[in-house]
């Protein structure tokens, strides 16, 4: 069992940062609803406040790591141009997808949407983390602001979901592979 360096980075980007962000997003939404479901609810403790502040900051860091690793590490491998006369397009995912009408839309719609919509995620969650850190418990007395933050977190979930879905489908149809091989487990030959 082995993995290539490019495959490993793609896994870190998608399953490490991206999928973790998606899971964290549902947790943040639940916590927002729980603590603000009633304006007359119990007083929020300082340690709960600090926890959510750290949680949202970690989500923002994850979102930035996801888009930066995607844009500057994975994407150059994805869009690499094969030298003339290349027989196999396996190491050139974009060209491989575009070489067949049955897969071309994964690039022209999937990747084209993913590469831009994903950037709405760090913008939205950074804003949410900063506003929450600034207002903390007093968000209770700013219902419109609270609703705005919540809506942007929802939007970040939607955008991350779109990017994640297309990322998974793109990697299924034309995986980003290549580079040095890292052996993981030595298997027994039968």
């Amino acid at each position, binding site marked *: 069992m082995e993995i290539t360096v490019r495959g490993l980075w793609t896994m870190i980007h998608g399953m490490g940062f991206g999928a973790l962000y998606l899971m964290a997003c549902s947790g943040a939404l639940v916590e927002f609803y729980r603590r603000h479901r009633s304006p007359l609810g119990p007083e929020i403790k300082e340690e709960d406040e600090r926890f959510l502040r750290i949680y949202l900051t970690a989500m923002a860091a994850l979102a930035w790591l996801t888009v930066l690793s995607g844009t500057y590490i994975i994407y150059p491998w994805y869009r690499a141009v094969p030298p003339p006369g290349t027989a196999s397009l396996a190491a050139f995912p974009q060209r491989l997808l575009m070489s067949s009408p049955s897969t071309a839309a994964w690039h022209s719609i999937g990747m084209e949407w993913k590469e831009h919509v994903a950037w709405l995620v760090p913008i939205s969650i950074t804003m949410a983390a900063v506003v929450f850190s600034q207002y903390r418990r007093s968000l209770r007395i700013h219902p419109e602001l609270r609703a705005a933050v919540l809506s942007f977190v929802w*939007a970040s979930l939607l955008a991350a979901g779109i990017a994640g879905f297309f990322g998974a489908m793109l990697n299924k149809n034309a995986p980003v592979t290549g580079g040095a091989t890292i052996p993981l487990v030595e298997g027994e030959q039968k």
Partner: protein
Amino acid sequence: MSNQSTSPAPHAKLNPNGAGAAAVLAAGIGSFLVAVFAILADKAASIKSLMNFYKPTGPLSGVTTCAIVVWLAVWALLHRRWSWRNVEVGRVTAAAFILLFLSLLLTFPPIADLF
């Protein structure tokens, strides 16, 4: 966008909504700019070449860098103007939602290709 002061409630005087409204509106503008710069880079060859900040990534590097830089600049500017006052946050967030919704639509290639 209106930034007129409303008559604040006593609690709002202590913790005005301006800083939060600035962050929300800036996020809407930043999101919208990602879509606008992407369309511009796709439609105009000169802009596409200008946006090519990092060759292996291509114009996407410039599109996103420009959007992020302008987003942060707009945020800083709005924060400076609004952070110590109460603004009509309903109108501000409505504008931010419209921009956010448009950015989701305009990044979708079949819609972006209409321009």
